[in-house]
């Protein structure tokens, strides 16, 4: 028989790759022409935009329509049927979550029919829902419970047997599922699929047997799994770190920003009995849309780690022993003084500072540069991007991604390093149709959403970027990949937003700098410099970078201004991290301050870090943990951590936001900035700073890019302020922030503002203008001040050296960061430390076959620097001729292979069997 298989193939619409599926959001609710409509809700006339959903319009005007499946950040599915209302002229009941408002619409949300329908749906939802509220994590803050109290019937008429499932089953290391409590709203499965792109949970079976499933052996290991727990409207999904830890009525919350990476997602941090127990995502339109990654969500555990250092210590007879603060500070100050006497300020260096707040960074910068007089200061560790580049490129905000002509991602794997930014880029590409051009050494998180991926081999990124920039600039015809990328921009207006980072720490930073230089040639290019460390941007902005003073001004440009403000500044530009480590190795650093940094584990060149730490003179650790680096310190000054101190931080787009204090530290740890102030006092300078607000006000006064961003503005700006404010005045929204769950129990997160607040915010914006103008003039007019220095601009001009030729047997090393790495946040969090993967050398299938090894076999890996034994596996994501090893994973040892002074790292891989 002729088979239907033999029929000619169907032609695919051009340009649609097989894998690309028109996802659910391609089905759009019909809307009218843009404009405003007027409708009546429960007798009140309200205005809305065409295309708005009724449920949202009602909510914005103070009418809460109950709902379970609807979530503002996801497409409506209309499945729970809880949000039924009556619309005059339409037959039957309408679900307000999928009803688009229309002019003249008359809606009744409280009519008898509407109430009856809502009550009825609730009754049906409850018949199979267990009555275990007293032992349920959600009890007390449960939308189902609350809706039942507000809308529900009094008693149950259901006398039959309820549906039974095995009680909670783990669906991942972090999330448990209780199917009996599930009301099949599909929020979690839609989140996993639509938002996170990790469709590892789905609905299985059907009808009353519908359940959320994972594929056996393939758990819900999404970096974003915790969000499902937060948006589940019942207690069906619970997080293992929080389970049974607290009851909602015992909790109190403070609004904060997560500083696990440099995105700084908005959150509400909650504690019970002076212990942090939960971080909830808060919806911030410009930053995180309410989402958090799991590392950020559960990383608070590190704060209560047993291993925290709780009291100062000094080295006595070779041992670090506890002592009093005055003693420790005196010893530290003495050590610094001795170094200064011995060889002046250039023999003193400070590494780190990316983990603290802006206040910490500023006071330490003032201490190092204004008091000690050294410019050997670096918040990065040879793994980043030089400050002159990072602080000087034309900038884009996160929200600019949504409206970009195209997004170019250079280097880093956003999913591993800045996960919630990854979600934003994914959304822009997938949902908003922004062309995504990826320039990376291998297939990574965003590759599947990229319109085009250009592979760049280690050392060749600059050159690849040049060809791309040429093509984007109009010079086509030399590179097919670049031409294809450029073609994507045809007919699209707007900026090209470049997300720039380090995709390969085994390759010299010059390669990335060159790429930035090339792309910066494009007049429409604007950059988001994606450095991962929590507040690295704030640290650099506030002076913890060589050659820079607070507020994005160079040492030279700011000399006079800061000379006036501080008294003195270093004479010459100092060393960066690599230079500091090298100088230390050579015995030229007599005092080394380690400000929450661990070069031993976190610097790509382990031999260099090790040599430096061993040879450095007097070492002061300002840290919360004894690490491989800080264990060598002569004096240990314990610091408070995130959650234990208030302040501000600056994210990768330059947005300054608040972090809140929720618990007090046990022990006597101090905020970093206060330690700097204490040391300054001992070196004869009184900063006269007592509160973080005072530091903020000083920053606003003296740091040019932060002009006007003082404590008042920070307290009132709902989404923070992007520095410099003068360039981002439209983004300033003044108004109160509502913390989720505490005041409103309907939704875990109530995105945005209430209507009334919105009105407030609008008038407040004029106020903001006035406020800002006021601040600017007050700075300019302060008596006797020199003219304010200009902000630094990066003008390019850095070149990289072409990498040496690779011999045919060598593989060029790529090493990048993974989310769950060897860092202290993961290592000291019980829940996260379980998630760290074993290091495996990944090579292309072709290279595996050439070398002749099986997946999982042990191989010997040798570079010019060192040698390791590791398991190997083939992965099609890896390009031929390259090998990938994750950076800073326990046991990966990759930093033993890297030499920071070389452009690339070539490996020899030999089978051991």
């Amino acid at each position, binding site marked *: *028989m002729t088979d239907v298989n033999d029929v000619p193939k169907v032609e695919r*619409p051009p340009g649609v790759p097989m894998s690309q599926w028109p996802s659910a959001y391609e089905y759009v609710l019909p809307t009218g022409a843009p404009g405003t409509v007027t409708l009546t809700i429960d007798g009140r006339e309200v205005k809305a935009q065409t295309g708005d959903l009724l449920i949202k319009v009602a909510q914005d005007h103070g009418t809460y329509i109950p709902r379970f499946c609807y979530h503002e950040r996801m497409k409506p599915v209309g499945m729970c049927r809880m949000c039924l209302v009556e619309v005059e002229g339409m037959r039957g009941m309408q679900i307000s979550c999928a009803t688009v408002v229309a002019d003249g619409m008359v809606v009744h949300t409280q009519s008898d029919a509407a109430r009856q329908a809502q009550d009825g749906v609730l009754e049906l939802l409850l018949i*199979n829902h267990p009555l275990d509220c007293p032992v349920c994590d959600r009890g007390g803050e449960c939308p189902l419970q609350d809706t039942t109290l507000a809308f529900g019937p009094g008693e149950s008429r259901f006398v*039959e047997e309820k549906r039974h499932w095995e009680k909670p089953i783990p669906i991942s290391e972090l999330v448990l599922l209780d199917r009996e409590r599930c009301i099949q709203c599909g929020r979690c499965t839609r989140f996993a699929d639509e938002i996170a792109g990790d469709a590892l949970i789905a609905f299985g079976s059907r009808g009353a047997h519908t359940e959320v499933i994972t594929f056996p052996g393939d758990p819900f290991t999404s970096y974003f799994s915790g969000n499902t727990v937060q948006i589940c409207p019942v207690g069906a999904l619970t997080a293992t770190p929080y389970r049974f830890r607290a009851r909602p009525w015992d909790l109190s919350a403070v609004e904060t920003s997560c500083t696990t990476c440099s995105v700084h997602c908005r959150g509400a941090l909650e504690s019970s009995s002076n212990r942090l127990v939960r971080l909830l995502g808060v919806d911030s339109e410009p930053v995180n849309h309410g989402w958090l990654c799991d590392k950020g969500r559960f990383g608070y555990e590190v704060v209560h780690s047993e291993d925290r250092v709780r009291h100062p210590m000094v080295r006595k007879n070779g041992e670090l022993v506890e002592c009093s603060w005055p003693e420790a500070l005196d010893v530290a100050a003495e050590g610094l003084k001795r170094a200064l006497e011995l060889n002046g300020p250039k023999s003193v260096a400070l590494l780190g500072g990316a983990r603290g707040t802006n206040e910490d960074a500023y006071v330490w910068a003032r201490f190092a540069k204004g008091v000690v007089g050294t410019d050997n200061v670096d918040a990065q560790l040879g793994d980043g991007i030089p400050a002159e580049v990072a602080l000087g490129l034309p900038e884009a905000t996160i929200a600019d991604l949504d409206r970009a002509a195209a997004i170019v991602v250079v280097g880093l794997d956003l999913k591993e390093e800045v996960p919630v930014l990854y979600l934003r880029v994914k959304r822009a590409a997938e949902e908003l149709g922004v062309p995504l051009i990826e320039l990376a050494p291998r297939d990574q998180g965003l590759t599947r959403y990229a319109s085009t991926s250009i592979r760049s081999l280690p050392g060749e990124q600059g050159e690849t970027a040049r060809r791309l920039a040429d093509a984007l600039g109009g010079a086509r015809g030399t590179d097919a990949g670049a031409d294809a990328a450029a073609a994507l921009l045809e007919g699209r207006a707007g900026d090209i937003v470049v997300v720039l980072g380090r995709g390969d720490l085994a390759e010299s930073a010059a390669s990335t700098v060159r790429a930035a230089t090339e792309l910066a040639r494009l007049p429409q290019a604007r950059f988001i410099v994606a450095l991962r460390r929590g507040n690295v941007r704030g640290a650099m902005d506030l002076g913890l970078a060589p050659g820079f003073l607070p507020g994005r001004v160079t040492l030279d440009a700011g000399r006079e201004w800061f000379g006036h403000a501080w008294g003195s500044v270093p004479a010459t530009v100092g060393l960066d991290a690599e230079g500091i480590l090298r100088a230390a190795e050579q015995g030229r650093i007599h005092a080394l301050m380690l400000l929450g940094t661990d070069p031993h584990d976190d610097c790509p060149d382990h031999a260099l870090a090790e040599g430096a730490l061993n040879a450095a003179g007097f070492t002061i650790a300002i840290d919360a943990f004894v690490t491989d680096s800080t264990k060598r310190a002569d004096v240990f000054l314990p610091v408070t951590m995130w959650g234990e101190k208030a302040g501000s931080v600056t994210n990768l787009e330059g947005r300054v936001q608040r972090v809140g204090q929720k618990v007090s530290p046990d022990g006597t740890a101090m905020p970093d900035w206060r330690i700097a102030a204490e040391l300054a006092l001992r070196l004869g300078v009184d900063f006269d700073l007592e509160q973080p607000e005072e530091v903020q006000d000083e920053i606003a006064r003296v740091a040019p890019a932060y002009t006007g961003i003082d404590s008042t503005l920070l307290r009132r700006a709902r989404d923070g302020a992007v520095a410099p404010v003068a360039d981002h005045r439209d983004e300033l929204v003044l108004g109160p922030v509502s913390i989720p769950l505490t005041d409103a129990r309907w939704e875990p997160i109530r995105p945005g503002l209430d209507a009334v607040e919105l009105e407030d915010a609008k008038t407040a914006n004029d106020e903001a203008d006035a406020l800002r103008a006021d601040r600017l003039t007050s700075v300019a007019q302060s008596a006797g001040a020199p003219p304010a220095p200009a902000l630094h601009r990066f003008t390019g001009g850095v070149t990289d050296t072409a990498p040496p030729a690779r011999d045919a047997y060598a593989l060029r090393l790529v090493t990048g960061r993974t989310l769950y790495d060897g860092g202290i946040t993961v290592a000291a969090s019980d829940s996260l430390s379980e998630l760290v993967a074993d290091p495996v050398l990944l090579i292309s299938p072709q290279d595996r076959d050439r070398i002749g090894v099986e997946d999982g076999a042990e191989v010997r890996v040798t570079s010019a620097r060192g040698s390791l034994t590791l398991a190997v596996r083939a992965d099609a994501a890896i390009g031929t001729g390259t090998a990938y090893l994750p950076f800073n994973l326990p046991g990966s040892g990759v930093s033993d292979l890297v030499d920071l002074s070389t452009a690339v790292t070539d490996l020899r891989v030999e089978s051991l069997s």
Partner: protein
Amino acid sequence: MAVTETRIVTNRLREFTEDSWTIDRYLATGGYDMLRQALTMQPVQIQDEQVKASGLRGRGGAGFGTGQKWSFLPKGIYPRYLAVNGDEGEPSTFKDHMLIERDPHQIIEGVVISAFAIEAHIAFIYVRGEFALGIERLEQAVADAYAKGFIGKNILGSGFDLEVVVHRGAGAYIAGDETGLLSSLEGERAMPRIKPPFPAVQGLYAKPTVVNNVETMSTVPHILRMGGEEYAKLGVGRSTGTRIFSVSGHVARPGNYEVELGITFRQLIDELAGGVRGGKQMKFFIPGGASAPWLMPEHLDAPLDMDYVGSELKTMLGSGAIMVFDEDTNPALIAWRLLKFFAHESCGKCTPCREGSMWLEKVLFRISHGLGRPQDLDMMLSFGSTIVPGLNAPFSQTTICAMGPSTMSAVVSLDRFFREEILEMCNAGAARPTIPVTSA
């Protein structure tokens, strides 16, 4: 005068029982002539002068005007798709099964003409997975039609291209709902989608799509043969033409009967299907598949007219399945079994349907097995009005698809016609039925 069948769509398969499904027989009986003719016409001519003029209404259940449905396709948006609904799962409907097994080329010809008329270049025929023989024959027919140039590139030299893909279902009644079908065709759970957007605007792959039933498609070539206006002369009122009715249950001659619309239920059931077998009396009958509210013997003289049945009898002709039950039937048992079906087949998306059908099934199980409580019937009506507000025909609904309200048809019918009997059963803990059954 005794009624007879009016065999239009079923003529070939009745005449040539040995080989009605082969391409040779099809060609020998004038097959694909209408396709040839259609390809010389303008698509809009077929739409307006033929299909719309014929008054053809969909044979899948909802009875929506076929020409009208086609005209909803937004202008200028391509590609468009045609999806043919052969999922026939409505209990006691077995006409599409017969058409697929015994006259697949007739469907294909209708599909190619319709695709041409709506300017689609891919058509999917979604066939219920359990129809193994039907799928085999349909796939064969598609292959033969390709071979003969009735499908494929440049059909019969006209320049019109069409691919036809036979898509096999896998056991889900809800895949018969038009948006459920599209989800299923997209490789998904067959979950119906919220409307709007309607399939005509955003259907398969979010592109304009027409979903039509197998019998509807099979009728299209005959409309062209007869001429739209001529076809419209058959039938009654807005119910034009013929329809195939599947008659089953306690009748002497169960089977498919193609009749001109407008004859009475009595003519169909008594004269064609031989009436209630074994000399028994009819207790009640269901006129349009499991989803339709029931009727009583006193309704037998009503005409088979979609509008009349809807407005006067508060039920529907639906899928054309007529189930007849004799005097000994326990109506609660039938209602329970139908609810067991709905509970089993609810996709689970809408709370009222998912939970409501399960609850109704459990209560009806008790009632039909002698464990009813006096308040049960009213309680079902009470929580059932969450699914069907007001419980008045035509049913309004709180669910996405029409399956939700269908779950209440049997319960509403019990209340309409058998309230006393049910209450008596509940009060007396009436005798258990003889059939051992378990609740789903």
